[in-house]
């Protein structure tokens, strides 16, 4: 029976091998490579959260980095001010709730006010600057321009019994890997649910959806809050792998996450990871090779990919019948 499934569904083989390869990665590479991949997987979760709103609900967010940054800051601040054992868990919850709350506030304000489309995007773009300014001037809490670094190191496990320091690349890597798979499955469940279906209908014509009896602003706030929470979660995971500074909320970061999703393929979920990994490794490779020119190449590449692969890598793969590899919904 199982054999039969495996035989008929090459997808399972490919996914299984991919999973094993990911599990084995830290064992066969250096700490640097491990933390690099962990960081990129964190970015993948961040991109996934954007795909949920951008790819599926048509909410254009040019300031998604706000939520990533808010998550990271919430994590850092919580670790700094909650000095007891097991604080990491609270910090992570905090890092999910704070961006979610910002998302709900913003969503309540704008979606209930019927602000949508590019308007919404540009408002979030403008807010990026505001949140950055707020962080910089509240330097007592956030460390201001210098960034936030004097907090207790995040630890997982059972306090007192067995603890894992997230600053260890391997621990961070497996944590992030599990989180990435969990977030992917959650997102997949959401978009495949009836809620996900309605969200996609809202993307196309929100007025029409309303005539069918759906409270459109509410549903938009819900999906937006979920995405913001997920972005915040990725921000929290980023803390042991990177550095908390106002740079996390830059417009560049908001732009680059759009690029990751677009390159991977909008509205495919898995494309968020594919795009993030592809672009990030490409960037790492190019900037190692060409210290000065790499950014120019990235610009050219971004243009070419968008012109040549309008549906992203996953869309392209779909067309060339690599269907079995990518577990996207067949429509």
């Amino acid at each position, binding site marked *: 029976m199982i054999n039969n499934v495996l035989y008929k569904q090459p997808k399972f083989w490919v996914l299984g091998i991919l999973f094993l390869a990911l599990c084995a990665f830290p064992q066969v590479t*250096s*700490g*640097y490579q491990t*933390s*690099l991949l962990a*960081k990129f997987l964190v970015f993948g979760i961040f991109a996934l959260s954007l795909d949920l709103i951008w790819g599926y609900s048509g909410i254009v967010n040019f300031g998604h980095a706000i939520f990533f940054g808010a998550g990271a800051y919430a994590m850092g601040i919580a670790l700094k001010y909650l000095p007891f054992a097991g604080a990491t868990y609270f910090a992570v919850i905090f890092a999910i709730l704070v961006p979610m709350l910002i998302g709900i506030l913003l969503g309540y304000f704008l979606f209930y006010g019927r602000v949508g489309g590019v308007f919404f995007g540009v408002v979030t773009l403008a807010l990026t*600057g505001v949140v950055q*300014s707020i962080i*910089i*001037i509240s*330097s007592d809490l956030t*460390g*201001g*321009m*210098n*960034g936030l*670094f004097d907090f207790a190191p995040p630890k997982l496990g059972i306090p007192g019994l067995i603890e894992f320091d997230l*600053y260890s690349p391997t621990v961070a890597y497996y944590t992030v890997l599990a989180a990435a798979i969990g977030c992917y499955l959650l997102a997949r469940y959401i978009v495949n649910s009836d809620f996900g279906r309605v969200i996609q209908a809202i993307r196309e014509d929100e007025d029409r959806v309303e005539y069918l009896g759906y409270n459109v602003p509410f549903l938009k706030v819900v999906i937006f809050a979920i995405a913001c929470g997920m972005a915040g979660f990725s921000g929290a995971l980023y803390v042991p792998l*990177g*550095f908390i*500074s*106002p*740079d*996390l909320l*830059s417009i*560049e970061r908001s732009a680059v996450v759009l690029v990751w999703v677009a390159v991977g393929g909008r509205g495919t979920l898995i494309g968020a990871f594919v795009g993030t990994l592809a672009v990030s490794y490409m960037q*790492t490779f190019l*900037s*190692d090779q060409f*210290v*000065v020119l*790499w*950014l120019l190449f990235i610009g050219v590449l971004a243009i070419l990919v968008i012109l040549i692969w309008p549906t992203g890598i996953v869309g392209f793969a779909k067309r060339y019948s690599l269907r079995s590899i990518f577990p996207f919904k067949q429509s």
Partner: protein
Amino acid sequence: SARGEETVKLGGLFHMTGAGSVWGPSMQQCMEYAINEINSSGGVLGRQLAMLAEDDNTSPDIGIQKSTKMIQADGAKALFGVVYSSVRAAVAANVAARFRVPYFYPTYWEGGTSCGRYYVSMGAVPNQQLDYFIPYLVEKFGPRIYCVGQDYIWPRQSIEIVETLLKKHGGELVGKEFVPFDQSDWSSVIRRIKDAKPDVFFPFIGGGLVDCIKQYYDFGLGETAIASTLMDELFVPAFPPELREGMQCSVSYLMDLDNPVNNAFIAGYKKAYGEDAVVNNMGEALYDSVHLWKLATEKAGSFDIEDTVDALGGLSFNAPQGEISIQASSNHAALHQIIAEVRADGSFEVIKDFGKVEPITDCKV
């Protein structure tokens, strides 16, 4: 080759792209120049140095990634570079302290954060820039000073020190004001300066300085003297000649310094990178940093990083700016304070070199 295996690697992290890219290229050249100089005079403990250079895109994230790579994958023995404070803080905390590798930061800053055993501050902290500068300004132009800074820690601390010094020297801070980073229209700010009728306008503005000064002149404030701790060889070309002429600067190094060490340094540097090549105080600090690392390593007698770090405290070096030394208690450099005036052609006229000034900082190694 056998020789290649013996090289000792030093990592340079530069803002080659992004907001800080004004500084990256000249810093990279300075570090490269220092390494070449050391190599051609026999290297360190008989081994040649090799330079690693990476671009951080002026971002802490990439800064961490690249410096981790230089240390973990390439085996760099020390890190050098960076201007932006967020990148500095990131590299100091997440790379230097974590992987126990010395990191030399070449730029003026407020001091106090980032400190630690592996962090070597080679730039001036506020007291080094201001101790002699403020009395000089009061005496030369008058007691009334107006300060404007961007709204973050370095300007805030600097302006605080200005205020204290003014009190001590019979001056008066007639106004202070903090502005956002992306302030692009300065008309309101300038109006308030004008109303306060200061003798000296003293901005602590990084990115927006050029806009501010351009508009300052436009509003007819050209008569009031401008004092700055930021003005250097890289900044000066941004101003039209009529605006830069007469600006008062406090720095620890200038290309136009006339002493044998500097003359040799500049001559060699221009020979290597062309007549138009520019060094500013950060570049010189980076050059000094590499030499200090060499001295520490030689003093330690081995390439063991801990020994090198131990050897750093109290070392001194005869730098292009004059003799400098590392304060053992803080790993901060004692630097010269030089006051200069900008000429219309963009060169600096050195007015006074106050010699080595010890840094005052909370940092403890």
